[in-house]
């Protein structure tokens, strides 16, 4: 690691320390439904109870927005991400979006695109949609395999074309990108996938690896080997050097690859600037964080009180340093225990990206 990067990482650790004290709420995820129209092999949620679990009523969520959040924030500075399941399964999605827009909140969503018709897309844009991510997990055959739906690829590419066309022709462009889950089947096709995506109009492509959780925990075909992960980093760095905006996702401290495969230096913002309201009302940070780390429930607790006074496990992560492999790690100052979503219920770490890269700081 060169001196310039080391200084930058030290500065970033100072910024993180300040941010923990400030903890400005900037992103709020809402797990609005567990229903989904595909059955992905890698789904991070277990989705076992999705049929039985009812959607959270929109009024419950909006009540939290009105009584707990709006009095304390500038709505323009808080991005609400409606997640699932598949958010398009909710027929009232545009109504909810419009309600958020009228309150001054920008909102976004992540979708598999299958249910995103042109009419629906226009309806959502009119309802204030500002940010959208489409999942596309490879070339047609691999995408259909991972999504377990014969029309999944057609749906994703249709959605991509719709958004690309909108951004080309209209003056208020959406912030959008495509996200791809790198796995054993598609890792060898990354250059072809990028070419395919660029031909559809994509200019921002985010790639992530699968973590051993949810359905992926028992499917070895999904998890990258250390060699494949290292190849992924080299590939992303080379694409960025060639001027293509390809990024690795936000998770994981990446040592010498910091500053080379993402726009920003590593920061796990869970509980620092990111919160979530889950389907049962639980208050958490990123939606994939284990249940032990939930901080309250909107049906029992004041969201704002929890945000202000809870989340101590997130804002003081020194407890992570007592566990392997962090206890003797020289990268602690820069990494601080890796992503919060990678902590098991017992506090142990599922995955160390630095180890995968074979690096020591």
């Amino acid at each position, binding site marked *: 690691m060169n001196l*310039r990067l080391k*200084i*930058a990482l030290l*500065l*970033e650790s*100072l*910024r993180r320390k*300040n*941010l923990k*004290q*400030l903890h400005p709420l*900037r*992103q709020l995820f809402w797990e609005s439904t567990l229903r989904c129209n595909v059955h992905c092999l890698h789904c991070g949620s277990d989705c076992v109870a999705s049929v039985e679990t009812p959607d959270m009523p929109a009024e419950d969520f909006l009540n939290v927005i009105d009584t707990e959040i709006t009095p304390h924030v500038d*709505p*323009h*500075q808080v*991005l609400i991400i409606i997640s699932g399941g598949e958010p398009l399964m909710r027929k009232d999605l545009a109504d909810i979006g*419009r309600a958020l*827009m*009228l309150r*001054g*909140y*920008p909102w*976004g969503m992540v979708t598999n695109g299958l249910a995103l018709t042109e009419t629906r*897309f*226009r*309806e*959502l*844009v*009119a*309802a*204030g949609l*500002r*940010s959208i991510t489409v999942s596309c997990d490879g070339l047609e055959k691999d995408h259909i395999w991972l999504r377990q739906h014969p029309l999944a690829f057609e749906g994703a590419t249709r959605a991509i074309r719709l958004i690309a066309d*909108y951004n080309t*022709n*209209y*003056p*208020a462009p959406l*912030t959008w990108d495509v996200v791809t889950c790198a796995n054993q089947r598609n890792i060898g096709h990354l250059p072809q996938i990028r070419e395919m995506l660029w031909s559809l109009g994509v200019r921002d492509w985010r790639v992530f690896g699968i973590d051993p959780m949810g359905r992926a925990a028992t499917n070895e075909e999904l998890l990258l080997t250390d060699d494949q992960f290292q190849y992924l980093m080299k590939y992303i760095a080379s694409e960025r050097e060639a001027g293509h905006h390809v990024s690795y996702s936000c998770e994981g401290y990446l040592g010498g690859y910091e*500053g080379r495969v*993402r*726009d*920003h*230096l590593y920061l796990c913002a869970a509980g620092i*600037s990111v919160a979530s309201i889950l389907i049962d009302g639980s208050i958490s940070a990123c939606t994939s964080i284990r249940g032990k780390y939930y901080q309250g429930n909107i049906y029992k607790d004041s969201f704002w009180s929890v945000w202000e006074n809870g989340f101590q496990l997130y804002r003081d992560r020194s407890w992570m340093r007592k566990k392997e492999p962090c206890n003797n790690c020289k990268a602690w100052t820069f990494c601080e225990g890796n992503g919060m979503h990678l902590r098991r219920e017992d506090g142990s770490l599922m995955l160390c990206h630095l180890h995968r890269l074979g690096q020591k700081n």
Partner: protein
Amino acid sequence: MKKRILTRANALIILLLSVLGFTGCREYLVKYGVPEPPKPTRVAETVENEETQDIPSATDQAR
């Protein structure tokens, strides 16, 4: 007061990072942390359209 100091300190750090060539922290804040607010005119148009029940296409409104 403390909040203001911390906020300014972080703005300074972002500036220093930019000098070092790590401009992404600022871009990250703009892209994900401080998104562009909805356009007031679009909000007004939507309300007006709802009242008149004459809803043009979304792209027309955005235009």
